[in-house]
């Protein structure tokens, strides 16, 4: 697979390590009433869809940026690559 890095251009997926569903960006509030339930779901449960999947890849052997890659889990086709930082900010995270 080739991941089209937003800053560096097309890179071999071998340079990256995979973390999983991009929902992992949104860590629950540890002070919430139901924080324990929220953290259980956050840590252990996954949508795991067959088809389009937004997921976190880390450019470990490159510029060490985190990316959100939109990839089809049935065909391995990559349709979109964004910097995880930009995604997190656009979804309301300040840091």
């Amino acid at each position, binding site marked *: *697979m080739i991941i089209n890095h937003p800053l560096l251009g097309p890179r071999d*997926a*071998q340079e990256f*390590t*995979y*973390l*999983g*569903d991009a929902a992992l960006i949104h860590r629950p509030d540890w002070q919430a009433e139901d924080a324990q339930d929220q953290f*259980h*779901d956050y*840590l*252990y*449960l*996954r*949508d*795991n*869809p*067959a088809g389009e*999947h937004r*997921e976190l890849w880390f450019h470990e052997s490159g510029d060490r940026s985190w990316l959100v890659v939109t*990839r089809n*889990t*049935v*065909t*391995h086709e990559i349709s979109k690559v964004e910097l995880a930082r930009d995604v997190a900010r656009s979804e309301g995270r300040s840091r």
Partner: protein
Amino acid sequence: MRYSGFRVIKEALTGHKGWGPAWRDPEPQPAYDYVIIGGGGHGLATAYYLAKHYGKARIAVLEKGWIGGGNVGRNTTIIRSNYLLDGNEPFYEMSLQMWERLEQELNYNAMVSQRGILNLIHSDAQRDAFVRRGNAMILNGAGAEMLSVAQIRKRYPFLNFDDARFPIKGGLAQHRGGTVRHDAVAWGYARAADSYGVDIIQNCEVTGFRIENGTCKGVETSRGFIAARKVASCVAGSSSRLMSKAGMRLPIESTVLQAFVTEGLKPVLPGVITFGAGHFYASQSDKGGLVFGGDPDKYNSYAQRGNLPVIEDVIESGMALIPALGRARLLRIWGGIMDMSMDGSPIIDRTHIDGLYFNGGWCYGGFKATPASGLCYAHLLATDTPHDTAKAYRFDRFRRGYMIDEKGMGAQPNLH
């Protein structure tokens, strides 16, 4: 019809006119006591033990394609019980004991071959870890033996013993481990289950669950609604896809694991061997092909085919261990989709929906577990209590902090 040597001779002399189909092809009934979703090894084994041990019931196995067309037909056929942790070892040891009597019980030649499995050691730390594992195996009645380099040389003279980086320092052997003809496991269980009246319904895809007031009443299928007192999901590889139809999210990611077979060779590899310095394991099939595999592709996939970097890694590991492997020509490479659970261990449990049960999360270890998985799942379905050896395989172990992290890697699928 009972299979025997006598029968083969009789049929040979009478023109093979007496062989019938090994199982029926029934139309789905409107209602069953138990509907098992998934006609793979585990699903068919569950149906068989349910029918055999837990009394007369109307049981159906629903399979969207043909039986044995999923992971039971795509694995590397290894059986073993060389586990460390309490939650696992008694379960896998029971499974190995069931393999030992499987063919007589099913009256079906599954070619169970206890040729032994050998885990190689390349460092002192690894020796300590394997001695500990061997002791855990002995405590659980599985048997284990630490082999010296001289003992290993005798049986596997062609290994790369004096590699500069990863010399072989010994090995942990389980002589009762081995291989089984994988397709025959599905066929044997199907035939035996059918003989107890289980309806095996192929080309019948489950498209949804009918859930009323928190109780599962049956399944919607491509061949109409089928009512059931208890519905049992048994579709490892597609568990998340199926259970999402019941609104459930699982502690599972789907990953592809590749396997390889070379052209047929003369007998060279007498048992199953695993490399301790990289991820590589190999055996030789009865047809002569070297069957081997290694790491999964470590990202979510439902593609049933993998990518080249993992192939390169597996072949490199193989060449590091068995330099002669380079002279064999690769015949086929294929991939299977696995349920990678968060801690690397399976789940056999009820769900929060009454009448809906779950079996999955087998990671890359489902094949060897087939008999025990079937028995434990049947026990759970019939009695609503977990089988003694499968008590640890619960959904809530993540919430309660009782994960079964066999490899000590952490609770994340891409670490296992």
